[in-house]
């Protein structure tokens, strides 16, 4: 008997007990649906994380002042030696992989335009800052080296600030006041979105580093050549870990840190740290994956149960099939195909539910979800395998029946 014939018989048998078939496959439905939802949401999440890593700036190292012990803050008071222009200069000159470097000295400040005002983060930056952060200018011009040299009163503003202060108008060329100092808006930064911590990165105003030191950031806190945090872009062909070590050794030399002494700064690879955080996420999804595997096993036991019922109900049919020439393996195949068909039916329903639920989650949570064909194929494969594994025992029982007894059964 051909597989196609077996499949037709299986469909016919399932059709006559359609409700029972659907209820039986519920475990498979849930298993397949949850696998698809999980993996799709998980894929979307890791894609989102990748996007955030890119928004941090790729191949970028951040140098913070202070000990590396507690999140960039020194444990002991007074050990905070700020990073200076000289430190930045030394890193730029001595570390081979550094292609661009810029400081960022930030402070919260109210920005006023006419009668509107908005509390935002104002950062003094060097000319290469937008390059290092992979943050292109959407309109207008960037802050150039001459702006930094002359401590020009120019500003780049983020999308959120544009929205709050300009309400649809073109801000380029307009004047805003920061801490009562007038600045000319020379450009608008492109949208960067939320940071991994959920902070709105577009709620920002960039001004030249020198201007910030002289006029904006609390003067008493600021030494003459302080640069805040330093962002260094590393050449994509260079080893970022090597660059990190080189930066550390250059700064240790400059600061004459003893061999066993604590560093008064820390160098971070933010992208790495973020990836490490996503490991937790993937551990979680493995756990949930195990849950759906259990669901498939429970579903498989349901399949086995109903197939045993089916074999009992159809004992006479099995006897007849044997009498007219069905071999044991024909009977085995027929019931295996039936179990697999049942599981694939459940898998199909599960896949439809899974894809629909993934789409609903994407819509409701504004969370990117991606359903890959591989996961669809994989989950259907898992459903079919469940059918073979749990269908084998009932099918073998059918095939081992004695034709005489089977024909005589009620």
């Amino acid at each position: 008997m051909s597989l196609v014939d077996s499949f037709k018989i299986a469909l016919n048998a399932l059709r006559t007990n359609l409700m029972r078939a659907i209820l039986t496959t519920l475990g498979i439905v849930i298993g397949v649906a949850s696998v698809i939802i999980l993996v799709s949401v998980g894929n979307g999440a890791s894609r989102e994380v990748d996007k955030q890593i890119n928004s941090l700036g790729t191949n970028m190292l951040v140098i913070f002042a202070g000990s590396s012990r507690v999140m960039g803050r020194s444990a002991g008071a007074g050990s905070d030696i700020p990073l200076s222009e000289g430190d930045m200069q030394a890193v730029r000159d001595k570390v081979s992989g550094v292609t661009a470097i810029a400081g960022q000295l930030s402070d919260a400040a109210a920005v006023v335009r006419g009668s509107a005002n908005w509390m935002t983060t104002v950062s003094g930056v060097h000319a290469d800052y937008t390059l290092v952060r992979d943050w292109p200018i959407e309109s207008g011009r960037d802050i150039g080296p001459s702006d930094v040299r002359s401590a020009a009163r120019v500003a780049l503003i983020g999308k959120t600030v544009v929205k709050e202060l300009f309400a649809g108008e073109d801000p380029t060329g307009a004047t805003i006041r920061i801490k009562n100092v007038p600045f000319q808006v020379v450009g608008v930064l492109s949208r960067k979105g939320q940071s991994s911590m959920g902070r709105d990165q577009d709620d920002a105003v960039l001004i030249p580093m020198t201007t910030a030191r002289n006029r904006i950031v609390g003067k008493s806190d600021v030494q003459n050549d302080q640069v805040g945090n330093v962002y260094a872009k590393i050449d994509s062909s260079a080893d970022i870990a090597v660059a990190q070590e080189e930066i550390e050794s250059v700064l240790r030399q400059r600061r004459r840190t003893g061999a066993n002494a604590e560093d008064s700064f820390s160098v971070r690879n933010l992208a790495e740290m973020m990836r490490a955080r996503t490991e937790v996420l993937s551990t979680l999804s493995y756990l949930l994956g195990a849950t759906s595997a259990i669901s498939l096993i429970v579903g498989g036991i349901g399949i086995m149960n109903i197939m045993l019922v089916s074999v009992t109900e159809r004992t006479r049919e099995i006897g007849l099939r044997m009498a007219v020439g069905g071999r044991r393996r024909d009977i085995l195949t027929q019931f295996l195909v039936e179990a697999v068909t049942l599981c694939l039916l459940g898998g199909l329903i599960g896949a439809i539910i899974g894809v629909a639920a993934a789409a609903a989650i994407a819509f409701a949570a504004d969370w990117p979800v991606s359903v890959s064909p591989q996961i669809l194929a994989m989950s259907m494969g898992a459903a079919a395998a469940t059918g073979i594994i749990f269908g084998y025992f009932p099918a073998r029982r059918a095939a081992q029946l004695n034709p005489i007894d089977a024909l005589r059964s009620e």
Partner: protein
Amino acid sequence: MSRDQLAAVANTGPAAKATALPLLRAVDLKKAYVMGEETVHALDGVSLDIASGEFVAIMGPSGSGKSTMMNLIGALDVPTSGQLFIDGRDIGTLGTDDLAELRNRKIGFVFQQFNLLPRTSALHQVMLPLSYASPPPQDAAQIARKRLEQVGLGNRLGHHPRQLSGGQQQRVAIARALVNNPKILLADEPTGALDSKTSDEIMRLFTGLNRQGITVILVTHEGEIAAWARRRIVFRDGHIIEDVRQVPAWEKVEVPAIADGGMPV
């Protein structure tokens, strides 16, 4: 010309004659079942020849061994000892796959309860044995249709068992039994579930088929049904107690002309 007839023509020499077997030969056939501590000898040394083209009724009360004999003739079971040759093959030497193939090719079963598949059209019922043939014929539907026409159900191809009368269901079963051109039509109480008029129709059908050359073996406890056969074998306690030739009932009553094997509906 059947294989046996061919063999009879070929085996004219005295040496060859010894190897020529009838369609069915039982030699000291025994079948015992162990039930708990007891061993039941359902068949206790049966020897029997049935030639191709015979119409045999096997009779006997329950427990006589006639059902056991039928299971062996149907290659559904193998003997404990002795030999049973079906068309030259000793079934005791065959494995389950070979037995299945033998049933498929040589034997057509007709049961008391018809044993049709539920929710399956007459055409597909009849096609069932063809699907187990190796290789399955390409024109299975065509062959099945012809057989249904032969039993007078050419206009019921798409009907399911529920939509057919008992007699019609049994005809579907007979068409199914015939579809692989078997040597033996083995019928177990084929009229047991039918009224006398329908029984009569079914027995006429068997008679017509037998006249075309097929060997019919009928297992029954009804004398009236056994009367249609040309030979009557009676079992008791695992032995044959009677084996007689008889003039069948259809020669006493008027049988309508049978053209091309077709039976009047």
